[in-house]
């Protein structure tokens, strides 16, 4: 067999994706797949050694991402990816710890952990696939569901004010925030790369279609139609005020990099305070002493 033929057997992302677990469970034209592909490319682009990357997820469609990446990957409980990732990061600061989470997992049941991780500026990269609905459990309303979308628990239209996750996290203190749709493949990959390289709490929101539930219940066509709609109706505004980027039902979506600021991480603050108070007595301890560089030192 020629070298050229061998190469065709290999997918370029085989090194990052767990091909022995394919086919995946996601519906056709769901947006999660493209987001995962962007992530895989971004990881490669950062040149962070793959052995040093850990992915943590909770429950839901996006929660299954951990199972498809060929990295140390932890599929935990509903909403709890962030505290698990926090422990992982603090135990081994050399790791690049990434949380993959859906909007419900992250901002409803996991909402308390989300705001506190951002407040602490915990050195994590959080990727949120926001499809405005609970997919895994059959299309219920989420804290992000816009008025007056139809879901299985708002059969007459959603009426609660939804979260604008960008505004929420900006107020809490995240270091980096961006939003794209799942069809902005190149820009999404760029933002993920930046987020992965940014010390502190970085947050990338990917607006994605739920083809089977959100699109169908709201008669929005196929998943691909909806993905295209989001893309075509987005308006790039880098540096937009996060307070102004609410998302309304089937309206234009403001995308771009909203926040990129320098704030010390939890570990840096912890070390600085103990150095100030204890001086030489403070014993900075990386629980795992693997000889690698400490990424946030």
């Amino acid at each position, binding site marked *: 067999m020629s070298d050229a033929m061998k190469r065709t057997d290999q997918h370029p992302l085989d090194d990052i994706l*767990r091909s022995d*677990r394919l086919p995946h469970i996601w519906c056709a034209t769901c947006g999660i797949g493209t987001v995962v592909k962007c992530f895989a490319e971004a990881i490669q682009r950062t040149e962070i050694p*793959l*052995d*040093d990357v*850990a992915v*943590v997820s909770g429950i839901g469609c996006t929660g299954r991402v*951990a*199972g498809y990446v*060929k*990295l*140390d*990957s*932890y*599929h*935990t*409980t509903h909403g*709890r990816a*962030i*505290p*698990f*990732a*926090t*422990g*992982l*990061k*603090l*135990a*081994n600061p*050399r*790791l690049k710890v990434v949380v993959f989470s859906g909007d419900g997992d992250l901002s409803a049941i996991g909402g*308390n*952990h989300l705001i*506190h991780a951002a407040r602490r500026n915990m050195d994590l990269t959080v990727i949120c696939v926001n499809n405005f609905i609970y997919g895994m459990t059959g299309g219920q309303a989420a804290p992000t569901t816009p008025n007056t979308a139809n879901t299985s628990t708002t059969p007459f239209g959603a009426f609660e004010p939804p979260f604008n996750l960008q505004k929420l996290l900006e107020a809490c203190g995240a270091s980096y925030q961006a939003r794209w749709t799942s069809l902005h493949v190149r820009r999404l990959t760029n933002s993920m790369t930046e987020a992965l390289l940014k010390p502190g709490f970085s947050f990338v929101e990917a607006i994605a279609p739920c083809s089977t539930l959100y699109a169908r219940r709201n008669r929005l066509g196929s998943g691909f139609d909806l993905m295209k709609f989001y893309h075509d109706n987005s308006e790039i505004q880098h540096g937009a005020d996060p307070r102004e980027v609410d998302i309304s039902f089937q309206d234009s979506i403001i995308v771009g990099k909203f926040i990129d600021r320098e704030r010390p991480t*939890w570990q840096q603050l*912890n070390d600085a305070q*103990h150095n100030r108070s*204890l001086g030489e*007595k*403070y*014993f*900075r*301890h990386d*629980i*795992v002493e*693997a000889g690698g560089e400490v990424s946030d030192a």
Partner: protein
Amino acid sequence: MEKADSKRVLTGSHYLDGDHACTEGALAAGCNFIAGYPITPSTEVVERYSRRIPAIGGTFIQMEDEIASITAVLGAVWGGAKAMTVTSGPGFSLMMENIGLAAMLETPCVIVNVMRGGPSTGLPTMVGQADVMQARWGSHGDYEIIALAPQSPQEAFTLMIDAFNLAERYRLPVMVMLDECIGHMTEKVVIPEACEIEIRPRRISTKEKGEYLPYEIGADMVPDMAHAGEGHRYHITGLTHDERGYPAMDAEVHDKLVRRLCDKVREQADDIIMLDEDGMDGAEIVLISYGITSRVARASIEATRAAGIKVGSLRLQTLWPFPEKRIGELAGKVKAFVVPEVNYGQISLEVERCAAGRAQTLLVPHMGGGVHDPAVITRAIEEAAK
């Protein structure tokens, strides 16, 4: 087994309360990560840890709640730490979700519960022993845990070391169930030299990269671990999983997994269980107790022995797994078990189950907020002996 690190061991004689002794036990055992949330009457454990750890090496983080605390502990363990969390009743309830995850992922960790009166907010500053069933059954599904109950600050120190060693040996959550009385009682605690303290190292896989399977089982039903960042690039999940760690929605895989999660403890129960017995020869009555109640009952045992009743004492240092074999043996020989506890009947139900009608079981309840009047226990022993 390895020896403790002398830097972490406060060798000498100290006058400590049970909570602080717990901290020293954890430090001696090598605990280098605590995530916790303040709750009476357990907070002294993390207060001391947060003061001690910066000069020793390790991390304390105060999380946003108890759910986050136990979950951060699990993450830290998979990142390479020896970790624990500390709480009391209401926080223990919140932790149950991820105690289940700890059991499912087979994560070695320690949970200290300084028990207060419940249900709900109950009696925050006062004693209870009413979480012992919750320790065993609190999370959903079938699994086994280990739970220990110290009766003094000294024993809080030593059982913390046992707890970490058991967690590493069997890869599961181990609970140290202090009660408020023991947590807040100050006594002499003798901390030995580090070289006299045995520490069980983590079972780390020696497999080459690419060969490691997270749940591949050796002879003793306990898999070896790999931490994040070691190059194995493995996957684990709270879903029912096969030996690769991959989800497997399959009754057969589930059967195999659940049996193993339980049997790795059940089949080793004799090795795990620690009991403190006296006066069993020819005993007609056996008093079964744990924690503070074993100390309160001591006067009753002495009084009734002096009155000619043959009373044996069986103190549970290990609450779970339950010593069903030992109690079964005794049930064939004695007339009755007397079980005082600071609740409305929990361990007494287990005793009754194990006695299986061959001996009477007499519960002596106290609802909490204080301990029994020893006279009440004395009367119960007299009653049982009639």
